[in-house]
């Protein structure tokens, strides 16, 4: 690792983390659900940049493909197929804003306490993997059963989505 990289990487991480958190807050707090979906897309692109910082290049690409390419498109389809969800007069939050904020603040403080308290290994040198090859080998050897179960799960999700999305003929 060169000297400039040592200096630049933490700065890049801080900027990425700040932008990710801002877009995540926008995705849960904006009034218009369509804007929320777009903020979620931006958040996942930034999160994949954080993955690149951790040498997970394959996962970064897959994240952009699946989340931004598939899930955000699905969400936007669902938004445009339902109506009057973003007009100014409709309340977008329930009465739980203050208790919900307190609960998630408590959750974050608890997680922070655990993260600070646990003795994580520090300064682990980066191991240069051929990530695509290694993940492929792992998927088809060590995790073969889980891989097969995932394929069945995807088939079930496919059939379930088609069945639920189909217009039911009323007599």
């Amino acid at each position, binding site marked *: 690792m060169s000297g400039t990289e040592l200096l630049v990487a933490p700065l890049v991480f801080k900027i990425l983390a700040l932008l990710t958190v801002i877009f995540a807050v926008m995705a*849960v707090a904006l009034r218009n659900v369509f804007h929320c979906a777009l903020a979620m897309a931006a958040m996942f692109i930034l999160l994949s940049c954080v993955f690149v910082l951790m040498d997970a290049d394959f996962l970064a690409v897959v994240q952009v493909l699946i989340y931004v390419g598939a899930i955000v498109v699905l969400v936007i389809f669902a*938004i445009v197929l339902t109506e009057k969800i973003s007009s100014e007069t409709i309340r977008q939050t329930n009465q739980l804003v203050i208790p*919900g904020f307190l609960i998630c603040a408590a959750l974050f403080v608890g*997680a922070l306490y655990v993260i600070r308290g646990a003795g994580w290994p520090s300064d682990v040198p980066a191991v240069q993997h051929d990530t695509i090859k290694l993940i492929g080998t792992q*998927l088809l050897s060590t995790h073969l059963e889980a891989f097969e179960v995932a394929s069945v799960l995807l088939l079930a999700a*496919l059939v379930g989505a088609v069945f639920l*999305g189909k217009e039911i003929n009323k007599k």
Partner: protein
Amino acid sequence: MIPMTHYLILGAVLFAIGVFGVLTRRNAIGILIAIEIMLGAVNLNLVAFSRFVETSTLNGQVFAVFVMTVAAGEAAVGLALILALYRSMRAVFADRFNILKW
């Protein structure tokens, strides 16, 4: 060199934001968006563990692939459910779906 705790704290912040969204949103699609944010935070933690703790096997990244699979299936079925509910009740607000209550 970025310490591992920074990634974990970012994951915790994103997860807390997702929990806030799930608790406070009325729109069912908004709740689904918040759930996806929580799954993304979990993926961030898994990749951080695979980078710093279990560096030789990339098990964390393989697990993150499975989490993404489940997230994709969940989004497809969840949005189909929301569309079916909208078709029968003309609403996407979670507090309107109360016909199973007394």
